[in-house]
C-alpha cells in the first residue's frame, strides 16, 4: 500500500522532472537553431528570390486580414473612446487616444497575433509536413542544406513582413478611427488630426511601435520555423506543432510586449 503511494509519487516527480528538463533542452535547441539560421542567412539572402516567395506567402497573403482587422479595431476604438471621453468633455482628443493606442500597443500586438495565427501556423505546418514526407532528409542527401534552403528564407520572410504589417494595421486603424470619429460622430476634422499630431511623436511613439513589431516578427518567425523543424514526423505531430506555434507565439507576443513597454515607458519618462 505505502509502496504504491511511493511509486505514484515517484512517477509524478519523474514526469515533472522530465517535463522541466525537456522544456529547457528544447529552449536550448531553439537558441542553437536561431544561431544556425543567422549563420545560414547569407546564403538565403544571396538567393533572395526564395525569401521574396516567403514574403509573398506570409506578408502579402496576410494583407486582407490585417487591413480589415485594423479598420474594425480602429472603428471600435473610436466608438468606445468617444463614449468615455465625452464624459470629460474631451471628445476632441479622440484622435490622440486612437493614434497612441494603435501605434504603441494595438498595432504591433494585434498584427503579431494575427500574423502568428495566419502565417506562423502555415509555416509550421509546411515545414512539419516537409519533415514528415522526408523532403528535408532528401535535401540533405542531395547536399542541399534545408536550413539555408527552407528555414532561413521563411524566417526572414516573416521578420521583414511583420513591421510592414504592423504599420499597415496602425495606419488602417487610424483611418477607421477617422471614419467613425469624424464622419459618423462628427468630431471636427481639424481637431482630430491636429490634436493627434501634437501628441504623437515620431520618436519615441512610432519608433517604439516599429521596434515592438520587429521583435514580434523575430519571435513569431523563430517559433514557427522551430516548431515545424522540431515536429514529430506524424500527422498528429504536425497538428500538435501547429497548435503549439499559435499558443506559444501568442503568449510570447503578450509577454514580450509587457517587458518592452516597461522599458520604453521608463526610457520615456526621465
Amino acid at each position, binding site marked *: 500500500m505505502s509502496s504504491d503511494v511511493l511509486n505514484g509519487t515517484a512517477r509524478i516527480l519523474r514526469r515533472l522532472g522530465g517535463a522541466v528538463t525537456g522544456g529547457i533542452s528544447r529552449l536550448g535547441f531553439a537558441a542553437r537553431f536561431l544561431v544556425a539560421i543567422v549563420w545560414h542567412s547569407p546564403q538565403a539572402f544571396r538567393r533572395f528570390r526564395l525569401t521574396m516567395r516567403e*514574403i509573398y506567402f506570409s506578408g*502579402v497573403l496576410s494583407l486582407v486580414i490585417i487591413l480589415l482587422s485594423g479598420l474594425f479595431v480602429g472603428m471600435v476604438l473610436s466608438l468606445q473612446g468617444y463614449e468615455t471621453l465625452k464624459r470629460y468633455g*474631451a471628445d476632441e482628443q479622440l484622435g490622440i487616444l486612437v493614434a497612441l493606442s494603435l501605434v504603441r500597443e494595438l498595432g504591433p500586438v494585434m498584427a503579431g497575433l494575427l500574423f502568428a495565427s495566419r502565417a506562423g501556423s502555415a509555416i509550421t505546418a509546411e515545414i512539419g509536413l516537409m519533415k514528415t514526407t522526408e523532403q528535408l532528409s532528401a535535401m540533405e542527401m542531395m547536399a542541399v542544406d534545408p536550413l539555408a534552403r527552407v528555414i532561413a528564407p521563411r524566417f526572414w520572410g516573416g521578420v521583414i513582413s511583420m513591421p*510592414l504589417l504592423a*504599420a*499597415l494595421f496602425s*495606419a488602417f486603424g487610424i483611418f477607421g478611427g477617422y471614419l467613425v470619429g469624424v464622419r459618423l460622430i462628427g468630431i471636427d476634422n481639424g481637431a482630430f488630426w491636429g490634436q493627434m499630431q501634437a501628441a504623437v511623436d515620431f520618436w519615441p511613439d*512610432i519608433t517604439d511601435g*516599429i521596434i515592438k513589431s520587429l521583435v514580434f516578427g523575430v519571435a513569431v518567425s523563430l517559433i514557427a520555423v522551430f516548431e515545424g523543424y522540431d515536429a514529430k514526423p506524424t500527422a498528429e505531430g504536425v497538428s500538435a506543432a501547429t497548435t503549439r506555434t499559435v499558443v506559444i507565439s501568442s503568449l510570447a507576443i503578450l509577454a514580450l510586449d509587457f517587458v518592452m513597454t516597461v522599458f520604453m515607458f521608463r526610457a520615456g519618462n526621465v
Partner: protein
Amino acid sequence: MNRSAIDLWVGIFVAIGLGAVLFLALKVGNLLTLDRTAGYRLEASFDNIGGLKLRAPVKAAGVVVGRVEYVRLNPKTYEALVTMRIENQYEFTRDTIASINTSGLLGEVYIGLDAGGDTVMLKDGQRIAKTQSAMVMEKLISQFLFDKAAESGGGGGKK
C-alpha cells in the same frame, strides 16, 4: 504563381507598407513640422513646474514655438531649471515672461512665453529672467480656505 507575379505583389506590399510608415510619420506624428534638433535653447527657472513634462509644448500667443527639452532641479536654489528648444524662426525679447499654464481643466501643461518691449533678443543658451510658476491646485484651495477662515474667524474675533 510565377515569379514575376510574386515580385509584383511583394513590391506592392513593401510599397504600401512603407507608405503606411510614412503616413504614420507625417500625418500622425508630424515628423517634419517640429524638428527635434533644429532650433536654439532657452533656459528658465521656476519655483514650481507643477505637472510639466518633457516634450511639453512651448507656446507664444497660443502658437507652438518649441518643446521642453530638459528639466532638472538646481541643487543650490531648489528651483526647477527648464531647458526649452525654440524653433529658429522665432525670437524673443530679453524681458520675455515665461509662465507655466494648463490648457483647460484637464488639459496638458505647457510653457507660455509673453514677449515684452525690449529690443535686445534672447540668444542660444540664455536664461529667461522673469518666470511665473505653476499654480498647484492644492495650494490654491488651501489658500482659499485659509482666506475664508481668516475672514470669518479672525474678523469675528476682533469685533
